[in-house]
């Protein structure tokens, strides 16, 4: 029996029971749709993180106090016994290193900011002027912190868009005095909108000179030193150099951690790949359930068509012919379901984000589509082979007598 004829016969058999075939396919359709949709959400998240992180610059090295052996990821805020990193460490690194372009000390804290009768608790970041370019931030009006501000511990403040709006509304804020903690700071600049990046709302922060921050929070402990490498290819050399310089300076102890942007990226990638895999796997289970549906219906179909099988065998169909005929029916159901599922899954992945009130990045990629397609085909073969074999092994005489 040639393959075209087999396909035609299988399609005719499926068309003879349209509702039943459609319902059987529905199991596979739902399974494949779920696989594509969930994997697309996972991939979208991965892509989002990747863009965000590489947007911060790939030549950044972040030095934090305390030794953490695991690379990248989220570190616990180390307080207490951990040896501090200081403003002088940052200056020292910048002065002595041959690979580093910048080394910006960062002090992070929260403070209450008051203007007339309005007040707001917000994140205060103490930095040096180089921070602006390092984090790819932009000033909208006024100016950023200057080196003179640092050197003179001047009480000046640059506000994020949101903070400014909360405190001043549409009023001009430049030149106004605000109260931060217990001191008065003059507003010298307003940042351009940056938006949320990796959970940090850069519009709801204020920047002050790092030296003023030391006084404000009464500390000389840095939150981190952000440094940039002159050439990205020297990243590893720079890490080794920073280690050497700081260990010497910290009485031969490695009491700090250097994290590169790519470390964070690869950690996030790993987490999200696992997440995507888990989501896809869960969706895959429903695909297997769909396959069991196919097997169930094929078994019913074999029983119903016992007589047909007997007739076909009597007039010369071999085991193989019957086996292939029923197998192709099962595979047609699963592949057709797979294709519809792929279309629906990809369609939902593209359309659904537009109808959600929150941001959901989705990314339809080729591999889950191929995977879902071949998996659904495999499901068809796996769950089709048993009923098909059952059909092919039927005894022709008994089948012909079957009512």
């Amino acid at each position, binding site marked *: *029996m*040639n393959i*075209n*004829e087999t396909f035609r*016969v299988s399609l*005719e*058999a499926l068309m*003879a029971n349209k509702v039943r075939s459609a319902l059987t396919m529905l199991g596979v359709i739902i399974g494949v749709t779920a696989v594509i949709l969930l994997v697309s959400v996972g991939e979208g998240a991965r892509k989002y993180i990747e863009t965000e992180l590489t947007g911060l610059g790939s030549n950044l090295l972040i030095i934090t106090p305390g030794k953490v052996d695991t690379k990248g990821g989220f570190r616990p805020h180390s307080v207490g016994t951990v040896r501090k990193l200081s403003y002088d460490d940052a200056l020292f690194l910048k002065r002595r290193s041959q690979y580093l372009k910048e080394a910006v000390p960062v002090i992070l804290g929260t403070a209450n900011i008051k203007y007339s009768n309005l007040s707001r608790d917000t994140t205060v970041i103490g930095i040096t002027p180089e921070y602006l370019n390092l984090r790819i931030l932009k000033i909208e009006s006024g100016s950023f912190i200057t080196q003179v501000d640092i050197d003179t511990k001047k009480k000046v403040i640059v506000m994020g868009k949101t903070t400014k709006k909360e405190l001043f509304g549409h009023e001009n804020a430049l030149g106004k005095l605000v109260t931060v903690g217990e001191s008065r700071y003059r507003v010298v600049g307003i940042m351009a909108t940056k938006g949320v990046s990796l959970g940090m709302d850069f519009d709801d922060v204020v920047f002050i000179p790092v030296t003023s921050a030391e006084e404000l929070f009464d500390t000389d402990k840095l939150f981190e030193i952000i440094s940039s490498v002159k050439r990205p290819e020297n990243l590893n050399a720079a890490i080794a150099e920073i280690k050497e310089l700081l260990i010497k300076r910290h009485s031969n102890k490695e009491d700090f951690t250097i994290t590169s942007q790519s470390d964070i990226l690869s950690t996030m990638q790993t987490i999200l790949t696992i997440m995507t895999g888990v989501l896809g796997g869960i969706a895959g289970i429903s695909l297997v359930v769909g396959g069991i549906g196919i097997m169930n219906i094929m078994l019913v179909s074999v029983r119903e068509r016992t*007589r*047909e099988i*007997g*007739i*076909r*065998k*009597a*007039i*010369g*169909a*071999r*085991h*193989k*012919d019957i086996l292939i005929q029923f197998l192709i029916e099962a595979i047609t159901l699963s592949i057709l379901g797979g294709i519809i599922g792929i279309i629906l899954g990809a369609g939902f992945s593209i359309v659904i984000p537009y109808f959600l009130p929150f941001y959901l990045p989705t990314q339809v990629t080729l591999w889950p589509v191929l995977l879902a397609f071949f998996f659904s085909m495999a499901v068809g073969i796996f769950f089709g082979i048993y009923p098909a074999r059952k059909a092919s092994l039927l005894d*022709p*005489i008994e089948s*012909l007598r079957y009512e």
Partner: protein
Amino acid sequence: MIVVKDIKKTYRMGDQSIDALRGVSLSISDGEFISLMGPSGSGKSTLMSIIGCLDRPTSGSYKLFNKEVSDISDDELARIRNEKIGFIFQSFNLLPRFSAIKNVELPLIYSGVPSEEWRKRSLDAMKAVGLENRIDHKPTELSGGQQQRVAIARALVNNPGIILADEPTGNLDSKSGEQIMAILQNLNEEKGVTIILVTHEPNIARFSKRIIHIKDGAIVKDEKNAHRNFVSALKV
């Protein structure tokens, strides 16, 4: 052409075993027209299934075209059924979903005949049974006699040397039955097709050249039919 020697067939049903055939020997040569007669349960259908390569004997030897059937593989037997043997059943056994001509085409799709020839050959077979104007009818849209003629066309489409008919007129009125017999007789006379007919009706058996009586799984009488009837007066 067909040589059966001491064939036995035993069916097991639970712990009971039933002897359907208890040693049957028989030889049939080319161009014969044989009726296998006997009451129901006599083993005549079992014998026909074995001759038609649908079933294998429990013991004994069956040579078809000088080849021992027990040595032939299942796939090869399927090919023999496809090319050398045509089957006609009491209940027609047409596929209800398919049109008449599609039913007739069915043996061709399992044969080596190229698909371009299917239509022409099945049309010829439909003409041979006088149904060339009913090709697109579904079996349910045809009378019993017409359905059986479609079944005959299906049996003929691969030009087999042997036609096995199991009570072909059993579900038909006598006029349709005679029509069927006329076609079979014509095939036997004109084309030399060997016809083996299973029946319990003496009325039907009288059209054949040789009548074999079977009872309780054994041949009790094997006779030439000297007073053979012809239905050639009935034109189809």
